[in-house]
């Protein structure tokens, strides 16, 4: 793996299911995502694909998205 691709990997995001939400969490509803982010998000939920690096979506590491389950955005 060359530098560029490992760097890219480290900026990618994945989704992790969460069971309970701490009071300090940042939480958004899926309807707050823009159309493009929703596409990426849905693909990640359905097909387990990684989310693209910062900038391509408006998802923040650590935030929880309320969808059919609750998921947290994590570093890939």
């Amino acid at each position, binding site marked *: 793996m060359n530098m560029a691709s490992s760097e890219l990997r480290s900026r990618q995001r994945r989704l992790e299911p969460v069971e309970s939400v701490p009071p300090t969490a940042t939480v958004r*509803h899926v*309807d707050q995502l823009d159309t*493009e982010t929703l596409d990426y998000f849905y693909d990640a939920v359905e097909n387990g694909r990684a989310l693209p690096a910062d900038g391509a979506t408006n998802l923040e590491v650590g935030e929880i998205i*309320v969808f059919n389950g609750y998921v947290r955005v994590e570093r890939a």
Partner: protein
Amino acid sequence: MTHYVIIGDGISGSSAAETLREEDPEANITVITDEGEPLYNRILIKEHAKGKLPEAPISIHDEGWYEERDIELSLNTHVTSIDTDERIVHTHERDDLEYDKLLVATGGTPTQLPVENSDADGIHHFWTFQDARGIKEHAEQSDRGVIVGAGLLGIDFAAVCGAQGIEADYLMRGDRWWRYALSNEGAEIMHEGMREVGVEPVFDSGVDRFEVDDDGHVVGAVDPNGERYDCDFAGVAIGLSFNTEFLRGAGLEEDNGLVVDEYMQTNVDDVYAAGDITRFYDVLLGEQAQNGSWGSAKEQGRIAAVNMAADDEAEEFEWVSSYSITHFDFPFLSFGHPTLGDEHAERKYSDTEWRRVAFKDGKIVGGVLIGDLSPQSKFKQLMREQREVADQAEVLLNKQVDLDDLE
């Protein structure tokens, strides 16, 4: 220095305040709300009522947010009338306020059922965070529920009952849930979702009256067929009445909502409106329309503010709204105006997958996706491009939609 007054601190009013401060750093900005707390996430309060989300993450702004931006926030302040000749806002709680430009962003209030005992204890309506707290507390102690209102807000009550272990009957007037947007095949998927969480849909029903005990607490609902349903919890979501009483005599054009153009301007100079309350000119649809969704309200607030600050028709509102239901183990997304249009195409793919696309003059104006959201951005793109595709509905109903297959 311009004085902007915004009535309503929901997402449309708050988004307008934020944009106005960015666009006009010197201006005076006042936000008035009759609620006791600053902007919170209205589309997450149902998760709190379900018992799944603590209160703190639902709040969006604290009072410091307004202070930092030098925006005056007036909580617990009810606007009673406005004088558009003198440019004055009258309130119950404080002195009159003069404005140069006014934004009305007051949304709606859930409509009460016009039946006996509809205001009894234990019968809930759902709009504010306070409502959600009350619903949660009561739902935690309840066993049997009745839900009325076969639409997008009624189903939130079904989800609350499901999550809080309340066995409930969902009394619907017609033969299915959201009959204006779903056929029987689509609705049946939703009915199955309800049954799985312990909520039984009851068709060709509704509520003729509620019954109460000696303490005035609801104990049952009787439908027009004379059937009685036991309940110690009831949720009513039959629609919204727009908060326009204070506009009486102000000369603003109303048509079940405040009429605005694509710049969010009302018919009265320097008075704008944004959010649920508007009947706006939808540039994609080519006619006046209404949206009742978070994203649309936020964008309307932003657009109104841009045009207010520019004192010009600087940017028009062009938006395809989305509304999801996340309560079941399959996704649901309604987009655009699925209940409008002159024709539609639909298909069922499996017991949990169904799709409808609605067309007007051959162009997509909205739709509903159940079970598979993958084509959502493609359909929205076609809407924005105003492509005439109704005669190629087959391409849109393919499980995998490929826009390159369109002629």
